[in-house]
């Protein structure tokens, strides 16, 4: 078994004799690498750790929820908002920071299967998926706002009486009716200019039902 040289031993004795040096080494030793956000093992759906991983998603979705309530006070007990939150919560990948651009063909396929199409550019789409929502398959995609990802859900069966916005506690969301029926939920960062994105989408999105 190797032993320390005399010199090495003296150096180490000096370190352990100096509280500041030894404590600094000790603290470094304790600070092992740790996962930044999401542990490797995913919890069951609906568990809080999942929610931790997608807290931002939920926060953003809350904007849409509140927005709906503001627009349609007579529907104060509408289950739509919580369901949007729950839906986005179950798809944390959607709002993950991603440099990916969904290919036009793939995006077009999602829209088509969701009964919609776009007739003008809407910017980079980083996520697109056909998702079950209140018994219907709807197009769910993410575009890029000035402040970060903006979630869009095209809801052919959800009627909205008029555009509305909501801004409270730093969250922002809007649900607007779409020409021909149904509505569109747009949820973004607190300081995002959602109206710009909303209007751009309204000009571009058409139902193909």
């Amino acid at each position, binding site marked *: *078994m*190797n*032993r*320390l040289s005399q010199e*090495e*031993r003296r150096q*180490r*004795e000096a*370190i*352990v004799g100096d509280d500041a040096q*030894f*404590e600094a*080494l*000790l*603290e*470094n*030793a*304790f*600070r*092992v*690498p*740790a*996962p*930044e*956000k999401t*542990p*490797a*093992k995913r*919890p069951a759906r609906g*568990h*809080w*750790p999942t*929610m*931790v991983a997608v*807290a931002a998603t*939920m*926060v953003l979705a*809350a904007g849409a*929820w*509140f927005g709906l*309530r503001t627009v349609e006070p007579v529907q*104060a*007990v509408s289950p739509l*908002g*919580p369901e949007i*939150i729950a839906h986005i919560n179950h798809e944390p990948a959607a709002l993950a920071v991603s440099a990916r651009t969904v290919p036009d063909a793939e995006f077009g396929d999602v829209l088509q299967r969701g009964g919609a199409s776009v007739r003008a550019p809407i910017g980079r789409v980083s996520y697109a998926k056909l998702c079950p929502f209140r018994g219907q398959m709807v197009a769910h995609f993410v575009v890029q706002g000035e402040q970060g990802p903006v979630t869009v859900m095209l809801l052919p069966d959800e009627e909205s009486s008029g555009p509305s916005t909501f801004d409270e*506690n730093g969250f922002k969301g809007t649900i607007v009716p779409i020409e021909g029926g149904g509505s569109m939920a747009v949820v973004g960062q607190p300081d995002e200019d959602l109206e710009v994105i909303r209007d751009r989408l309204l000009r571009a999105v058409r139902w193909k039902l």
Partner: protein
Amino acid sequence: MKAGILNLGLRRRYEQVVGGLRQDLYRYALWLSRDPQAAEDIVQESLLRAWRGFESLEDADKAKPWLVTIVRREFLRFKERQREETMDPEVVAQIAEDAADPRVQELRTAIFRLEESYREPLALQVLMGHSTDEIAGIMGLTQGAVLTRLHRARDKLKQAFVEDGMAVQAEKE
């Protein structure tokens, strides 16, 4: 619906309180369990439990010892289920070797080898920044017992650092 709104506010507050502690909670769980996968599971389950009981936390300043206690209890549950010690020397060696400084590597290895009764209070003090009084509360010990364990833990590590440094390196080779 109103309950849902309140719930959302609570979740935001929870994230604010817990967010900055998550990594250290993982580290604490790792030093307890000496198993990265177990540490992740323990922290996940702990965060779930913390969320369920978050409304009962009245003072955010007490969040850290509260969370540490939850992680500790979860670890004890984990240990009870495991029944057998599960330290994998290769995994432990990988964690130790992650440090650039070989002296830190050696200390990590030495900490992993400490008995749990010494390793835990040291982690609570050095990693989590708890006072001896807080450690006593978390571990259910007297403050004197905590001081004794901390002193002995450091003595053991210092001895290993001076006496066995090269031995540790030789073993790794």
